[in-house]
């Protein structure tokens, strides 16, 4: 047999009415407050605690007449109205505080906590529904409800980690509100749970009582725990607060660095944050970056004094190679620094060193002696490191941009050089030519050119400036100019080469020289005249014999003998040619192209064989491509090749 709720003692009808009203309130407010509070209206702990108090105060005030004993004299209708008001205020306080505390709990959300809170609500809603339908339940169900509720309360009231979110300046006001709330809670608990004189608790052992007890119990216990928690938290609040500020300071500095503020702005922010978060009374920052003028910032210190202060500190802080932080806890006692100290009693000086370069110094002061503890110095150091990181990152970025710029310049240089070297050789009437040129880097020291001397004669020059890359390319451009002007004088080949040697000797570094081959083709006489100035020999293909050979001759490179003695080394050769004969002019990049595995060069012999083999092609371009393909097959994947140039010329 179950136990059912006792019949009410006195006015049964009125009891039902009250109970119905209160149950409706309960349900309505449970939902209303749940969504209102969860709607994000409350963002800080202080807001929430103040709201709890705003619910608690009316409920507490409503109790005063009853406790003072003046209600017994009231007429029955007024008394009824009072009871309803009292019940209402009490109910919304209990539910409001319940919801608000839940939102406090959810400030640091965990999956477990969320589940228990949801369970708690479900329990309350079930209770409220049962309350409205007035279903009498067996005793053990009620006991089970008490148990479940009790466990929930015990779990939730020990979850106080929102306390760590309380800011230093909010602590006292929150504590004050919690004291008020707890006083009212004590009254309410006494009135409704202990004295049990209140009429809607005159029924014992019912479900409604279980739910009220649980809810009131939770609110009261949680309020008490919150107050106690906050009081116990006071001593450690400073540390947490400090850590929070440090984190915020660091975020501020890195944010300013992220927005690509200049180094000065990042350092200024670091300075402001360091003074603020170490609670320093004064300080200065001195720094000098990138050849710019030194920058001095000061707070509560005379700007003009900073330099002398810095000079005094420098030998101490930058002690030898290692720069070290200097903590002077009793500044007034310090023999050299105290005259400058301006009444400050403790000082912290920190060097700013990036990649072993001293960038500057940060100095902080306080009006109390021994005022900088390990935490603060650590914080200041961290701030400096963050600012220095930002500075270094910026350096890296600038370096990258500079490199990018250089690469861009190289690209332009390559385009210019490509324009300096003609794609084809002019004056091809009577002979035809194909060319190939490929620098090892963006630009190179190889070149060729052709000049029409008269209707029958064309001059061709192919050359190679020693070395490669940009320096060789600049010299190559110069030589192009030299030949361009000299060919206009209609000089004999020997005279032209001697003059070219003079021009080159005048402007080349001593260890740089040029090899070249200067050739004048005379289609009327069907011969070519040439001077080989230390350049690779001519490879000649005799079409009638179907064989090739290198033409043996003498000659010295240009820029080697820089005086009149050079003329003695210039040898002029003449060579007649037949139709369909081919000459191959090339630079040493071709025959010295090395197989990376065997270290063997392509060499003169292979080049010659390749030419003979490739003459099976009718089209001259295909002959050259065949030779280049042979060369590439030989070097395989070798990427460290020299500048390479090749000209094939077939006589008509």
């Amino acid at each position, binding site marked *: 047999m179950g136990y059912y709720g006792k019949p009410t003692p006195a006015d049964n009808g009125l009891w039902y009415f009250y109970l119905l009203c209160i149950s409706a309130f309960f349900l309505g407010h449970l939902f209303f407050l749940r969504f209102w509070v969860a709607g994000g209206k409350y963002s800080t702990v202080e807001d929430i605690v103040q709201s709890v108090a705003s619910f608690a105060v009316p409920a507490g005030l409503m109790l005063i007449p009853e406790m003072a004993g003046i209600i017994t004299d009231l007429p029955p209708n007024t008394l009824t109205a009072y009871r309803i008001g009292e019940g209402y205020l009490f109910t919304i306080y209990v539910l409001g505080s319940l919801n608000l505390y839940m939102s406090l709990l959810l400030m640091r959300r965990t999956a477990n906590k969320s589940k228990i809170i949801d369970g708690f609500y479900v329990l309350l809603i079930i209770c409220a529904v049962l309350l409205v339908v007035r279903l009498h339940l067996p005793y053990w169900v009620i006991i089970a409800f008490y148990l479940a509720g009790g466990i929930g309360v015990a779990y939730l009231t020990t979850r106080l980690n929102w306390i760590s979110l309380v800011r230093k300046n909010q602590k006292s006001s929150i504590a004050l509100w919690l004291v008020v709330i707890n006083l009212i809670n004590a009254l309410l608990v006494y009135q409704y749970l202990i004295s049990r004189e209140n009429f809607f608790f005159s029924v014992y052992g019912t479900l409604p009582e279980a739910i009220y007890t649980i809810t009131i119990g939770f609110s009261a216990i949680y309020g008490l725990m919150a107050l106690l928690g906050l009081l116990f938290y006071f001593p450690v609040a400073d540390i947490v607060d400090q850590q929070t500020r440090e984190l915020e300071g660091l975020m501020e500095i890195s944010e300013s660095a992220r927005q690509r503020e200049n180094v000065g702005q990042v350092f200024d922010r670091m300075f402001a944050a360091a003074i603020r978060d170490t609670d320093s009374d004064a300080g200065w920052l001195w720094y000098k970056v990138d050849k710019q003028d030194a920058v001095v910032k000061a707070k509560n210190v005379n700007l003009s004094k900073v330099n002398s202060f810095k000079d005094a500190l420098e030998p101490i802080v930058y002690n030898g190679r290692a720069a070290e932080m200097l903590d002077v806890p009793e500044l007034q006692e310090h023999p050299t620094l105290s005259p400058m100290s301006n009444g400050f009693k403790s000082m912290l000086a920190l060097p700013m060193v990036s990649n072993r370069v001293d960038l500057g110094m940060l100095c902080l002061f306080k009006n109390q002696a021994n005022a900088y503890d390990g935490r603060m110095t650590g914080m200041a150091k961290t701030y400096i490191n963050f600012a220095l990181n930002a500075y270094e990152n910026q350096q890296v970025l600038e370096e990258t941009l500079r490199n990018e710029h250089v690469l861009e310049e190289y690209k332009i240089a390559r385009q210019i050089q490509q324009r300096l070297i003609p794609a084809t050789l002019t004056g091809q009437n009577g002979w035809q030519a194909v060319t190939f040129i490929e620098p090892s880097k963006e630009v190179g020291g190889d070149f060729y050119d052709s000049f029409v001397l008269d209707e029958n004669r064309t001059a061709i020059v192919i050359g190679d400036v*020693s070395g490669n890359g940009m320096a060789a390319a600049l010299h190559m451009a110069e030589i192009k100019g030299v030949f361009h002007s000299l060919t206009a004088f209609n000089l004999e080949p020997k005279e032209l080469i001697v003059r070219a040697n003079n021009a080159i000797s005048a402007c080349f*570094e001593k260890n740089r*020289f040029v090899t070249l081959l200067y050739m004048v083709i005379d289609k009327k006489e069907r011969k070519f005249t040439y001077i080989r*100035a*230390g*350049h690779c020999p001519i490879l000649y293909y005799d079409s009638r014999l179907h064989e090739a050979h290198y033409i043996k001759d003498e000659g*010295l490179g240009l820029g*080697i003998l820089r005086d009149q003695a050079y003329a003695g*080394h210039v040898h002029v050769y003449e060579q007649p040619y037949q139709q369909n004969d081919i000459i191959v002019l090339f630079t040493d990049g071709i025959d010295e192209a090395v197989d990376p595995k065997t270290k063997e060069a392509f060499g003169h012999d292979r080049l010659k064989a390749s030419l003979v083999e490739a003459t099976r092609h009718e089209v001259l371009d295909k002959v050259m491509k065949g030779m280049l393909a042979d060369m590439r097959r030989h070097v395989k994947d070798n990427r460290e090749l020299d500048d390479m140039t090749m000209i094939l010329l077939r006589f008509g």
Partner: protein
Amino acid sequence: MEIIQHYEDEILTIQLTGELDAKSSIDLDETIKLALLQEKTRIVIDCQRLNYISSAGLGVFISHLDDLKAYGGKFVFYGMNGSVYNVFEILGLHTIMEIVRDRFEAQTLMNES
């Protein structure tokens, strides 16, 4: 590249081992500059172990030709292998530099002048 110096009877012998490329040319240049400062101007280059010479390496010898002449000294090369000699020959350096077969010839040549 290994550069070994040996000074005896007023003749500086520089033994080159390996490949005289752009990088080692700088070392060789330093070596020769220092020798000139010490007025060691009769320089024999031992090429027996020289496998390869780049144009930068040639540039080192070319750049000191005038200075040596001014001091009354000279370079004498000996022991070149075929490919190294080929480089000298194509460039025409064999006509302006003393290149002999062995150490004895080099010393004899040096002492004649």
